[in-house]
C-alpha cells in the first residue's frame, strides 16, 4: 500500500482528464503522474531523508507528495507563515532535506543541509528527467507524511501518518473515479494542513479536478468558483464567515454560484448563526461538517447534507440543535467518551473523545499516543447524544475548573453567539484566588453595535447557572486565529494576565 497508487490508478483510468488547475494552467492525470515519476527519480538520487515543501498551493504540492511516496521518503509540508527562526528550528529536525520553496520567499536557507530549490526551477528540472517508470517503494508501514502540529500549546510535535493509515482512509471513504468529468473542487486550505493534504488525495482518487486558490480571500474564492465552474469546496469556519459576509453585503451575487453543489467545512468550531445564514443563502448547496485531526488522517465524523437540512427546517429544538453537532462516526471508526480516569461515559455525558480505527495513527516521532487496544485520546472534549451524534465542547485542556466545577467554554460561548450584537466571543480560564480558576470573556461586537457588560452578564444569568458568570469581560476588535481557523486561546489568556 502506497498513496502514490491513487495517482497511478487515475492516470491509468482517465489519463486525458484534467487533474489540476492552477492560475489558468491545466494538468491532466497523465501529466501529473509523469511529473511525479520524474520527481521521484530526483528525490531518490538526492540522498535526502525528507522531502519538504514551503509553498502555497501550487502544482509542486501534489507532485512532491506523490513523488516522495513513490521514493519511500516522508513528505513534510511546512507552514509558510512561520517566522524564519521557527522554520529554522523545524528544518533542523528534517535534515538532510530536499526542500522546494516559493519563489517569492525572502528567507535565507544557506545553512540548510540538503538541496533547496525554487518552485519554478524544480518544475523546469523535471523535464530533463527520464520518463521511464520509477519502481515504487512498497512498505505499508512506511511514513508517508510527517506533519508538524501547529504548536498552539508548545513546541510543535511531529505527527506521523503511514501509508496504511492514509490508504485505509481514502479507500474507506472515497469511491474510485466517483466524480463526473465536469466536477471540480476548490482547494483553499493551506497545503501544510491535513485538510489540504486529504483534499488532494481524495480528489485524485475520485478523479475530481482540483482548482487551487493559493491564498484565501473571500472575493477571490467567489470569483474562482464562478470562473472555474466549481462544484465542491472545503472551507474552515473563518473562511465560511467571510464568504457569507460578502454574499450578504451583495458584493457578489449567489446566482453566479450555480455550479456549486457541495460545501464541506471543518477545522474548527462553526458558530451556529454562520451555518444557518449559509443554509439560508445557498438553498441548493449540500453542506457537510467534517471533524477530524491530523493524528486520525483527517475526517472521523460527518454531519451529512440531509442532517443539515432536516435540522435547519425543524421546529423541535432538540433536532434543530444538531446543526451544532459534528455528526456520526464513519463506518470504520469507533468513538467513545471517557472521564479523566479513563472510564467510558454514557450518552449525553461530557468527557474526552477517544477514537479507534485503521486510519488512526495517533503517533508522533517523539512518542506513540495510542493507548491500550489502539484507542487514541484526542484531548478534544465532547459528548454523544442518544442518536449517536457527536457534539464538541472544545479542547480538554480548555476546560475552566472553577471551584472544582468543570465548565466548558463552548457552553458560555454558544449562548452569547445567539446575541445579535455579538460577532465573536471566547471564554478562557484566568487564575483566581477564590476559585482556583475564574472565567474571562473576550467579546467582539458587530460594527456599530453597542452592548454593556451588564447586558452580557444578564444574558448568561438568564440561560445558565450563576457559576458561568464571567469575572472579567474585555471588548476587542477581533479574536486571534491561526490561518487554519483555530482559535488561539493561549493568546486570549495572555490578555488577562
Amino acid at each position: 500500500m502506497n498513496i502514490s497508487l491513487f495517482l497511478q490508478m487515475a492516470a491509468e483510468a482517465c489519463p486525458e482528464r484534467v487533474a489540476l488547475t492552477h492560475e489558468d494552467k491545466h494538468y491532466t492525470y497523465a501529466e501529473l503522474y509523469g511529473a511525479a515519476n520524474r520527481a521521484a527519480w530526483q528525490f531518490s538520487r538526492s540522498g535526502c531523508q525528507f522531502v519538504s515543501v514551503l509553498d502555497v498551493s501550487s502544482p509542486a504540492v501534489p507532485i512532491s507528495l506523490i513523488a516522495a511516496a513513490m521514493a519511500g521518503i516522508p513528505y513534510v509540508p511546512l507552514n509558510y507563515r512561520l517566522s524564519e527562526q521557527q522554520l529554522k528550528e523545524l528544518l533542523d529536525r528534517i535534515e538532510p532535506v530536499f526542500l522546494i520553496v516559493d519563489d517569492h520567499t525572502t528567507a535565507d536557507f544557506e545553512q540548510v543541509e540538503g538541496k533547496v530549490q525554487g518552485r519554478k526551477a524544480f518544475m523546469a528540472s523535471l523535464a530533463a528527467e527520464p520518463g521511464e517508470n520509477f519502481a515504487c517503494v512498497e512498505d505499508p508501514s512506511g511514513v508517508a507524511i510527517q506533519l508538524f502540529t501547529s504548536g498552539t500549546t508548545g513546541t510543535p510535535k511531529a505527527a506521523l501518518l503511514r501509508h496504511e493509515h492514509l490508504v485505509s482512509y481514502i479507500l474507506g471513504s472515497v469511491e474510485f473515479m466517483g466524480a463526473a468529468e465536469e466536477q471540480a473542487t476548490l482547494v483553499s486550505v493551506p497545503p501544510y494542513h491535513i485538510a489540504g493534504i486529504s483534499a488532494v488525495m481524495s480528489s485524485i482518487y475520485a478523479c475530481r479536478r482540483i482548482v487551487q486558490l493559493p491564498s484565501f480571500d473571500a472575493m477571490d474564492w467567489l470569483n474562482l468558483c464562478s470562473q472555474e465552474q466549481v462544484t465542491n469546496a472545503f472551507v474552515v469556519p473563518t473562511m465560511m464567515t467571510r464568504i457569507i459576509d460578502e454574499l450578504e453585503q451583495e458584493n457578489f451575487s449567489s446566482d453566479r454560484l450555480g455550479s456549486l453543489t457541495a460545501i464541506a467545512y471543518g477545522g474548527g468550531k462553526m458558530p451556529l448563526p454562520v451555518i444557518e445564514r449559509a443554509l439560508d443563502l445557498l438553498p441548493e448547496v449540500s453542506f457537510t461538517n467534517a471533524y477530524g485531526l491530523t493524528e486520525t488522517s483527517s475526517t472521523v465524523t460527518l454531519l451529512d447534507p440531509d442532517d443539515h437540512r432536516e435540522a435547519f427546517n425543524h421546529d423541535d429544538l432538540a433536532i434543530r440543535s444538531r446543526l451544532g453537532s459534528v455528526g456520526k462516526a464513519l463506518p470504520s471508526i469507533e468513538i467513545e467518551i471517557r472521564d479523566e480516569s479513563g472510564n467510558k461515559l454514557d450518552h449525553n455525558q461530557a468527557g474526552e473523545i477517544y477514537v479507534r480505527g485503521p486510519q488512526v495513527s495517533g503517533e508522533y516521532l517523539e512518542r506513540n499516543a495510542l493507548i491500550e487496544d489502539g484507542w487514541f485520546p484526542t484531548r478534544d472534549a465532547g459528548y454523544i447524544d442518544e442518536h449517536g451524534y457527536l457534539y464538541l465542547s472544545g479542547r480538554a485542556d480548555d476546560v475552566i475548573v472553577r471551584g472544582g466545577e468543570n465548565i466548558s467554554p463552548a457552553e458560555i460561548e454558544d449562548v452569547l453567539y445567539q446575541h445579535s450584537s455579538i460577532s465573536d466571543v471566547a471564554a478562557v480560564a484566568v487564575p483566581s484566588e477564590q476559585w482556583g480558576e475564574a472565567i474571562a470573556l473576550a467579546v467582539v461586537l458587530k460594527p456599530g453595535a453597542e452592548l454593556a457588560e451588564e447586558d452580557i452578564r444578564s444574558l448568561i444569568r438568564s440561560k445558565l447557572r450563576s457559576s458561568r458568570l464571567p469575572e472579567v469581560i474585555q471588548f476587542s476588535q477581533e479574536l486571534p486565529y491561526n490561518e487554519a481557523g483555530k482559535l488561539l486561546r493561549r493568546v486570549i489568556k495572555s490578555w488577562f494576565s
Partner: protein
Amino acid sequence: MELKPGLRLKSAVCEAEVMVIKAAAGNELTCGGEALVEQVLEQKVGANEAHMHGCVIGKRYVNEAESIELLCIKSGEGSLYYNGDELMTKDTKKLPSSD
C-alpha cells in the same frame, strides 16, 4: 508466495492487476483460471473461459467471509477467484465528500 497487504499481483491471462488489501491464509488466488503472479509474463497463458467475467479498476473484491480483499488497480477480462470461489465487489459506502 505469501499474501500480505500492499502486495501487487498480475494476471497471467489478461491485463488485470490487483493489490492485496487484506490477506488470508492459503494462496489459491486466480484470475481467469490461472494463478496470479508477481512479475508480468512476457507471454500470457490461455484462460479458463468460464472465469472471464472481468474485473474493474477501483473496485474492491472480497470473498463471502471477507477474509480476503483485493483492490483492482488495472482492469482486465479475467475474474478473480479465491480457493475456488469467485470474489464479489464490495461497495464503498458512498459518503459525502468531506475534503
